[in-house]
């Protein structure tokens, strides 16, 4: 999944001609504004951090109690935490859980949401209204309190369970939007023509409808990654989840628990994960801006 987020800066992927057009388009759009290049660079950096970062540090990070709450310095670029552990090391090793869970959750959301939306919108009638009732239900239930209540039963100990639970509770709005797009698409000429030719439902859905909702879905994939990062880090920040591994949420929780917001000591410890989240969000927002233009030629400002 991680490859979806990486932008092909410089490399020419060997794919079908139509695909190549997309990548070339993306590259051209990215180059137009320096902010977009910066965005893709930031995202690529974070992906690299999640993939190779944890290998750069020992499994148990060194503790130095005499040097707790230190500010940024030459040996500790981002300062140290309440035990004297290097904050940069914590940040890098903690990124994998967060990123993997968010990507799994986003993939889950997109697959379930698109599937249900396409099916409901294309079939109409009974299945449609049943599915949309369920979708309404999923949308209406406040997600975070639900996740909190579920945390009493599930422990979210590995990124896979965390990602799946997040994805299962969050597909509602994608399903609803894909359904309404499908509803308008199915009345269009080319779908009528495909049906008139006697093509199978599977063909119409996969070859005619899916490519038309794909741009929306792709952008949603990116945006939901940020939403899920925010949700899971938030869950750990609240401190109701047991944790056995370090991640950004645990860092924030520990910083607040150790009174950083009261004493102001070790501010870089608290701010580092916050800034990391903001930076990643910024990167994704800038990248979405570029994607928007790739998919929507009408938005191009010439």
């Amino acid at each position, binding site marked *: 999944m991680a490859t979806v987020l990486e932008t092909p800066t410089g490399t020419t992927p060997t794919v079908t001609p139509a695909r190549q057009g997309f990548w070339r388009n993306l590259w051209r759009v990215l180059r137009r504004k320096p902010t977009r290049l910066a965005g893709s660079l930031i995202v690529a950096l974070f992906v690299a951090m999640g993939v190779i970062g944890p290998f750069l540090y020992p499994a148990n990070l060194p503790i130095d109690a005499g040097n707790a709450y230190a500010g940024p310095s030459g040996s500790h670029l981002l300062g140290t935490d309440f035990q004297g552990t290097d904050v940069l090391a914590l940040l890098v090793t903690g990124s994998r859980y967060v990123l993997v869970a968010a990507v799994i959750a986003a993939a889950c959301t997109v697959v379930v949401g698109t599937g249900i939306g396409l099916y409901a919108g294309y079939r109409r009638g009974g299945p449609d209204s049943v599915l949309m009732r369920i979708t309404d239900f999923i949308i209406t239930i406040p997600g975070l309190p639900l996740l909190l*209540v579920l945390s009493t039963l599930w422990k979210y100990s590995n990124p896979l369970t965390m990602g799946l639970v997040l994805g299962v509770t969050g597909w509602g709005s994608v399903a609803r939007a894909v359904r309404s797009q499908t509803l308008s698409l199915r009345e269009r000429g080319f779908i009528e023509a495909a049906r008139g030719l006697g093509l199978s439902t599977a063909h119409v859905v996969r070859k005619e409808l899916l490519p038309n909702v794909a741009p929306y879905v792709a952008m949603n994939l990116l945006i939901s990654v940020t939403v899920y990062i925010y949700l899971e880090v938030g869950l750990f*920040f*609240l401190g109701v989840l047991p944790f056995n591994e370090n991640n950004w949420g645990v860092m924030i929780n520990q910083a607040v628990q150790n009174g950083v917001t009261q004493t102001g000591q070790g*501010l870089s410890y608290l701010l580092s994960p916050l800034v990391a989240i903001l930076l990643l969000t910024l990167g994704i*927002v800038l990248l979405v801006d570029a994607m928007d233009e790739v998919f929507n030629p009408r938005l191009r400002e010439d």
Partner: protein
Amino acid sequence: MRKLPLRLAGHLVRALVMIWVVATFTFFLIRQMPGDPVAAQYEQLVQQGMSPDGARNATQLTYGFMPTGSTWSQYTHYLWRLLHFDLGRSTQTLGVSASSEVLTGAKWTIGLVLAGILLSFAIGAVLGVIAATRRSSGTGDALTITGSLFHAIPQFVMALVLITVFTVIWPVFPTDGNVDILVDPGFNGPYIASLVSHATLPALAYALSMFGSYLLTMKSSVISVLGDDFVLAAELRGLTRGIRFRYIARNALLPLFTIFALTIGFMFGGAVFIEKAFNYPGMGVTLVNSIGHRDYSTMNATFLLITAAVIVANILADLLYTAIDPRVRRGGTAGA
């Protein structure tokens, strides 16, 4: 065109079904808990020498449902008690019912959420108009980027940044709680001032994390309205800028109400983060604390109330939208 009472009835039925499903879900969730707290308490009381009947009544008081009997009879009994708003007792604060525990939190949450909604709506709408009218200049670009960025910043990050800036680096606001405990409660100056100063940062955190979506919606809505013929007509008739602004703003405000419903759910969900960060004693903190203390009856009551609040807010938003925009008063199934 459907009649309003009929519509309202449909909404109510749907809301009740939803609350029933959520209540059923939490019932089975609590029964699935590792170690089954309900059965555990019952057995502990029996072992301490209490009669089975006494133990059953005591456990029932705590959890709002019977510890023994078939699952079906436990379930129906639980629903029956729920109809009487009886959700058992809090186990963290002795002698307090779970529902009153939650209601104490609710008033603080609702105050904050309302303040946050109004602030973000005002900021977002005004900045959205500016972003739309200046969209080809640097100001417009800057506002749009700011809007999408703030929209994307998690609420707890916003809260923690505000705490760091305004209580640690530049200490002008209190960090903790809803009111200064040294001030006499009542309708007096210092008490109200203390309330306001405690609520300012949390409300600001809400507003800053919410105005982005209003800004972006308002911007695209104003841009589409600007292309309408009536705007050109108004311009040709030589109407002043102020009047034209009113024409545009009134029409462009409509889509903001559609995202209103979405933001309400977001607000109540976010209440958990913002209240926890500021240690503000609302429903969110009640929920987190009840989970921390394994106080399942309070947890159940809080979750049900938050869900009910979101459902009711959704219905209100839908009715409000119908009242405001005559075009949506259409036949067929609403919201389908």
